[in-house]
């Protein structure tokens, strides 16, 4: 078991190193000069001197190989993600940490709700195949799974914010309102409601479909027939045999999706003007802000690698065959 964990960890570290190197190469292949883009919006004549000044300021005048790549890898290994071009020298780590909570709250809460609702509903639907709940849940889930979350978000805004006026359609809180802690918390929750719903609805659909299919497979297995023949009750069969086996694909999906929590929901963040990692990615991409993009993608890579690691470990706990 220890040997297996060691192998998994080494694989994860090598993957992260590859992600870091690919980050550096990929963003520089994309056409676009950050020094020129930093002057975008200039309404007077931009001179070659100004462009050169930007290059010098942000170290872009130095040779890509080896100077820039060596600096990048060395700094990254020391935990220094560098500083942003677009945000005028702010540390990338600070920028990411500033935006991360908004994304974690939004996507984390949506994942939590989706896992809770989706997995339970999916497993139940699979257990009671053909029933009313199964039919409704499966139909609705397929629809939600196949609908882009930004589109769901736009519909939610139109209905609950514009038409009914119940909930705010953008932002994290109401700036300028002089309110106490409790009202402030409620205000934040109201701002969270629609974006969380937009992300969660699609995920619920995904979880229901996968959990239902897993459970449907399990209930037709021979060992379930044997269990029934041995006289086990429905509850005993569900808990002791069906649930644990059906959870294997669900755990994979859940852990992989958890890896995407930090990546945010770029399109949903755009619809709701949510100031998270998704919004930061768009802004950095438009400005060819390499350090910020590298930082975000390294974080994303790390979170997915860690999620995979968790999935591997969870598999070991759930399935004795893997442990061997």
């Amino acid at each position, binding site marked *: 078991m220890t040997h297996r964990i060691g192998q998994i960890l080494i694989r994860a570290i090598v993957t992260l190193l590859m992600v870091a190197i690919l980050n550096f190469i990929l963003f520089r292949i*994309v*056409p*676009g*000069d950050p020094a*020129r*883009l*930093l002057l*975008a*919006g*200039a*309404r*007077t*004549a*931009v*001179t*070659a001197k*100004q462009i050169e*000044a930007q290059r*010098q*300021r942000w170290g872009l005048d130095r040779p890509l190989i080896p100077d820039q790549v060596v600096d990048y890898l060395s700094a990254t290994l020391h935990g220094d993600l560098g*500083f942003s071009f*677009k*945000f*005028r*020298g*702010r540390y990338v780590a600070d920028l990411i940490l500033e*935006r991360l909570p908004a994304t974690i709250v939004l996507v984390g809460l949506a994942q939590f709700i989706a896992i809770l609702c989706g997995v339970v509903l999916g497993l139940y639907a699979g257990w*009671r195949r053909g*029933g*009313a*709940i199964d039919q409704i849940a499966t139909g609705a889930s397929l629809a939600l799974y196949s609908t882009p979350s930004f589109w769901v978000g736009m519909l939610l*805004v*139109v209905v609950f*914010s*514009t038409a009914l*006026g*119940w*909930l*705010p*359609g*953008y*932002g*994290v809180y*109401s*700036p*300028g*309102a002089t*309110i106490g802690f409790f*009202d402030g918390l*409620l205000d934040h929750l*109201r701002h969270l409601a629609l974006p969380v719903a937009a992300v969660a609805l699609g995920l619920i659909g995904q979880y229901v479909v996968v959990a239902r299919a897993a459970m449907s497979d399990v209930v037709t297995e021979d060992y379930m027939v044997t269990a029934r023949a041995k006289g086990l009750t429905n509850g005993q069969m569900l808990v002791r045999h069906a649930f644990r086996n059906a959870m294997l694909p669900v755990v994979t999906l859940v852990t992989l999706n958890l890896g995407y929590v930090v990546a945010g929901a770029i399109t949903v963040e*755009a*619809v*709701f*003007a949510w*100031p998270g990692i998704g*919004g930061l990615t768009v*802004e950095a991409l*438009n400005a*060819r802000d390499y350090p910020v993009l590298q930082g975000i993608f390294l974080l994303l890579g790390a979170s997915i690698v860690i999620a995979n690691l968790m999935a591997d470990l969870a598999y070991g706990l759930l399935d004795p065959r893997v442990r061997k």
Partner: protein
Amino acid sequence: MNEWSFGRRAVMKAMLAVSAAPWVLHSRAFASSCDDHIVRLGGVTAPDTMNPFASWNVYWPLVFTYDWLVGVEAQRYPDRKGFAKEWSVGDDTLTWTLKIWPEMKWSDGQPATARDAAFTYNYLRGSMGTPDELSVGWNNTNGLQNVESIRAVDDETLQIVTKVPTRWPIDHHTMIVPEHIWKGISYADARGTFRNDPPLVGTGPMIVSEFQQGQFVRLTPNAYFRTGQPATAGVIFHLFNTADPIAQGLKSGSLDYGYGLTVAQWADLSKDSAILVGESPVDQRDYLAFNTASGDGAGSTKALQDVAFRDAIGYAIDQKVIVDRAMRGHAAHGVGAIPPTHANFYSDLSDIRRHFDLAEAGRRLDAAGYRDTNSDGMREDKEGNSLRLELITGSGSGNLVIPVAAVQLIAGWLGQIGIPVSVTQLDPGALDARTAAPEHGGGGWDLLITNSYPSPTPQDLLGFASSKQIGTGNRSFWTNAKFDELLSEIETSVDLEKSKELVDQAARLLYTEAPYIMLSYPFLLDAHRKDCIEGWGTQDILSMNTYFPLDRLKPVNQ
């Protein structure tokens, strides 16, 4: 068969939850009302710092906090003055005297004097030639090379002496900053990492008091504003990546004003009785550029360097149809380099103007030697190669987007005259890379459809054809000694009438040489609600190069 069943307890829980919903949904914080007298604005913009020396991307919202010394708008509108109340130039046409508003104060109560203005310019000038020259942001050294000296004669008098005659002292848009805040900031910090965090100190009507990057900017009324404290309780400027939340915010009442709307959103909002929509001419120009470079970066054919070829193509483009069909009427159709917003310099060029006529375009191409000699439906250039052009397109970062339909129309018309066109749509970064100067890897394309948003000064409006700006503003790589000479004369002209004459000559030369063909001057679509705030003005937009109208907005019925 499964059955649906709900226990009484579950029903009770559901009822309780539903009854709590209105309380949650309508607590005080979210309730949108007019009572707080705060103006809520929405725009598609993403300022990255509050430091005008470090970034160009600060116009919103710093235009409300800092004044220009004079600026173009102050010369047009008597009620939109900047830091200076009056100005004049001496008989030598070199010495400018600007009278600063008497008794003016910064928003922190400190006196705002000519010494602050002198500091701002001398701070910039002091950086010139140093490794940390302040040349990267909105406040930059551009134009100061023509300045001999800038000094405060007394608290209310600023004197600018220029090396050559120029209108720069009143036409530029440098933000005047307070000496007592900025005097300790090094040049390296000013053009780099100094963020100028709020609360700011300015002389404009609304002072930035909070900046949440990617979310909003909060501004508070300047109690010391020279014409009196604004009547509203402040401004929340919401920052968006797309216009969708703006349109929805206007409808729901959570925004009072929004700009950058799409045509569809604008049309939808126009049906709402609580909302007044507007469309305003701005300084943006959409244009077709020919790659006139020879040698490195040249296009696929030498025809692009031939005036007769470019002129003929001009007859194959119907600006009126582009505006009516692609832009659904929300633009003025393109003519020359100067948009009609610039009444002082605009000319409709009626005596030399081309009119859409595909047959005429064909005749001119024939006459110029670009015929279809092998009857394959494609014209050949003078070297015998088929004319098959690559058209790249994309909008500048932050500019109003050129509709795809406009590009398709042009490609269609060129196809009809025997010049097939392949279209490549690019994002701002890739577009910028392709249109960089040939020595920086740019060029290689044939036609370009894009836009620019110059400042409202004649030298900036015409600068996109200057040989000095090849690969930066000049994307057609066109050079013309006569044009450069005219531009130089414009830059060193103080007399407005003389400037008008020179601008007209330059605009005509540019039109006949046709390195660019203007397609349209798009309108900025905006809307405001009528229920909470009034005083928006008509046929004008928020902050068209000044703090207007945040100085005069007031709560309805106040």
